[in-house]
């Protein structure tokens, strides 16, 4: 039974034979891969115009700019842009983080030219119309008021602030009420002029189109984009290490549940120990019903509906964090259980069976993560962003299997020090 009729697992993975990669002369890298299983296309990408360029006084500027790109261009109003998109069931959006402004969209294949035209206009000729900027400002401020009441958002924000201190990773990229209020239309125009350009931009197109045709379409709308003064990506400053455990509780009255985040710095995505940290994290707080953390906090103690750990690795130093939502009276107990698990983890590492389980999970689930066009698009963008090599997913099984227990333990000890934790909680 379960006879595989079409493709083996290996054949279904993206690789050098079917990822089409072209560098345009203006600096844009286009990645494309075909899949004709559905008449749809997923598009994604990014360019180096992130919050790293913002001053503390204008925190949230990159985010405000990215949210404004589709609020009006030299040729179309906000309503006209969305009318074109929504009339054909397509969608597109922009977002920003510390390093990049990213974008994504999807469409039926017949409407790809429309989607790319709108992408190109939004990137190249946004006008930041004053009335739309003010409407958006009210929306962003309401978002911040809602964030201020969300126990998990508040705990996570304080965690980043304590862990990274003055580093750009310690600041919320959606800003604060005062900074969003202070951002002017002129700030937005200047930010756009300085940082939006083809240099360093990546775009991936995945779906029911021949890759050469996809590249042609991108070239048509973005190939002529030139921004001579585009500011280059900034290097990250160093961050100060945490010397001893720091605790902070943010009181939020009228809430039924408290959220907690406990953690430390984790590896960068490009660090050689990334995969051993990731597999270690799987044992610690992911595998099965959220690993060892889920087992002690949820299954054995019944303290939380959710309890897990996560490794967030990107361009710069990452975070390795445990989070849970618990009844306020159980907060201390949950923190104690999590600290114990961290101590146990760096004392004895993972067992042979635990490591083998997580390795099997990583290898087995890969095709599932590549099921949809958007899954493939983000996979091939990861290859590009972190120089993983076009054959990365075909080498992946070997890379995962090669990680040893000793490496997991060594990596865990490198990053986890139970006496130097950041413990952030929010709730009543």
């Amino acid at each position, binding site marked *: 039974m*379960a006879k595989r009729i079409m493709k083996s697992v290996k054949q279904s993975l993206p690789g050098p034979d079917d990822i089409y990669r072209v560098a345009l002369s203006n600096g844009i890298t286009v990645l494309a891969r075909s899949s004709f299983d559905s008449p749809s296309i997923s598009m994604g990408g990014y360019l180096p115009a992130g919050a790293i360029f913002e001053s503390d006084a204008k925190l949230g500027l990159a985010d405000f700019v990215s949210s404004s790109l589709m609020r009006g261009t030299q040729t179309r109003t906000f309503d006209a842009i969305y009318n074109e998109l929504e009339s054909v*069931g397509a969608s597109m959006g922009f977002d920003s983080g510390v390093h990049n402004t990213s974008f994504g969209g999807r469409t039926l294949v017949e409407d790809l030219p429309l989607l790319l035209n709108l992408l190109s206009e939004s990137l190249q000729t946004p006008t930041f119309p004053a009335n739309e900027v003010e409407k958006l400002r*009210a929306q962003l401020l309401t978002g911040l008021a809602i964030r201020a*009441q969300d126990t998990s958002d508040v705990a996570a924000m304080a965690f980043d602030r304590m862990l990274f201190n003055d580093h750009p990773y310690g600041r919320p990229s959606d800003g604060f009420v005062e900074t969003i209020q202070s951002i002017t239309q002129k700030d937005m125009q200047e930010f756009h002029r300085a940082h939006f350009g083809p240099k360093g931009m990546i775009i991936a197109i995945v779906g029911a189109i021949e890759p050469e045709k996809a590249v042609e379409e991108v070239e048509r709308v973005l190939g002529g984009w030139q921004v001579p003064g585009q500011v280059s990506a900034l290097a990250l400053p160093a961050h100060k290490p945490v010397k001893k455990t720091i605790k902070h509780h943010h009181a939020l009255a009228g809430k*039924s549940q408290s959220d907690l985040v406990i953690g430390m710095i984790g590896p960068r995505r490009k660090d050689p120990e990334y995969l051993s940290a990731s597999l270690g994290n799987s044992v610690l707080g992911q595998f099965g*019903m959220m690993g060892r953390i889920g087992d002690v906090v949820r299954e054995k103690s019944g*303290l939380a509906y959710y309890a897990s750990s996560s490794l967030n690795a990107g361009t710069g130093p990452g975070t390795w964090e445990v989070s849970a939502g618990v009844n306020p009276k159980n907060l201390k107990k949950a923190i104690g259980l999590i600290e114990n698990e961290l101590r146990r983890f760096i004392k004895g590492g993972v067992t042979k069976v635990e490591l083998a389980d997580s390795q099997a999970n990583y290898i*087995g689930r890969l*095709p*599932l993560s590549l099921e949809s066009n958007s899954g493939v698009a983000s996979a091939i963008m990861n290859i590009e962003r972190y120089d993983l090599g076009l054959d990365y997913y075909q080498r992946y099984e070997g890379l995962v299997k090669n990680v040893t227990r000793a490496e997991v333990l060594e990596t865990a000890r490198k990053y986890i020090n139970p006496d130097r934790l950041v413990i952030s909680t929010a709730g009543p």
Partner: protein
Amino acid sequence: MANKITQITLKNGMKVMLKEIHTAPIISSWVWYRVGSKDEPTGKTGISHWTEHMQFKGTKKFPANILDKAISREGGRWNASTSHDSTRYFETMPADKIDLALRLESDRMKNSNYNAKEVDSERTVIISEREGHENEPMFRLTEAVQNTAFHVHPYHHEIIGDMADLHTISRDDLFEHYRTYYVPNNAVLCMAGDFETKSMVKRIKQLFESIPKGATPPRLARPEPEQKGEVRLSVEGPGETTFIQIAYRFPNATHPDYFSLQVLDSLLGGASGLSYKTSRLYRALVDKEYAVDVSGWSEATIDPFLYRIMITNHPKRKPEEALAALDSEILNIQNVLVSNDEIKRAVKQARAVFAYGSENITNQAFWMGYVEMFSSYEWFTTYLDKLAKVTPQDVQRVAQKYLQPKSRVIGTYIPMGVEA
């Protein structure tokens, strides 16, 4: 997307729906039980959802810690959820590993442990889940509106259940619920993915056909009487943001007006799964700065349920101003015929959303079971055609019939500020 499927019923009454898709080496398998929060009497609210949790506590053959590890080890993704009308369990696995999921589901259809200690531990987990929901103003508002909209029908309570019942439901209550509803003649198995139907049917029969048929489980039927007048309520809580929820009564998913209402919903609040910045309500409320967000939401249900409009009020406006703008837009769609082009647009949007959904095998298996709970697979395969047949007159008629102030509930979340 191709819609050819195989449907059979086993000797014990279990329905099986199979759809071969050979685009990726993946299979998704779902077991649906015809029981949800609509089957729960007062005192037992939340029991369907809690039973769903208990189904992860293992059987003799697959003890809890073996169960989840076995699936994860094979790279599978699995989960479960409970709705008003049904409870469903799924595993999406590499195709050559799907047998594990089938063995697990056949075993836990009849052999789950309902250990008292595990019940107590899960009680606090579920209470914690509810407390997490209670942190959210929208949950509190939605619950209050639903409680008010239904006095008789069990759609009255939230799926997670009332806190009082979460403290008192016992191990025996849960076990009885399990024994009553988890019988093959109350279950539907749906699979989509990279398999060959003939051999899969054979294997399913081996694993499931010997499970004895049970008594046909009762379904709680307490029709809600007609609402005779608008009801308004308020919920107070921390924060600075006012939320408004307006709930109108919508018929069940097999009602002749259903598809006209889907078009109406799409024109008012935008197409499901897409952005909605050119929907009528967005233009009337957000563009005009009465609100910072507005969206519409309906569900395909067995019994008549609600069409809900959610407004996040503009900080500089009073809730009454947003409501007046909403009423004016509703009057407009009741009085002025929409154009054929607007309907065509809604159909095109739905066609796109269907295409995106067909990229994903888990989603395709989901839909087979989902529609089977209230209708048949034909409901799904003819969805776009039925949408295309809706006329401007149909939209006007259902707008006039269902969007009546006298049959709505309006709830407002009143923010009491931030305590220092």
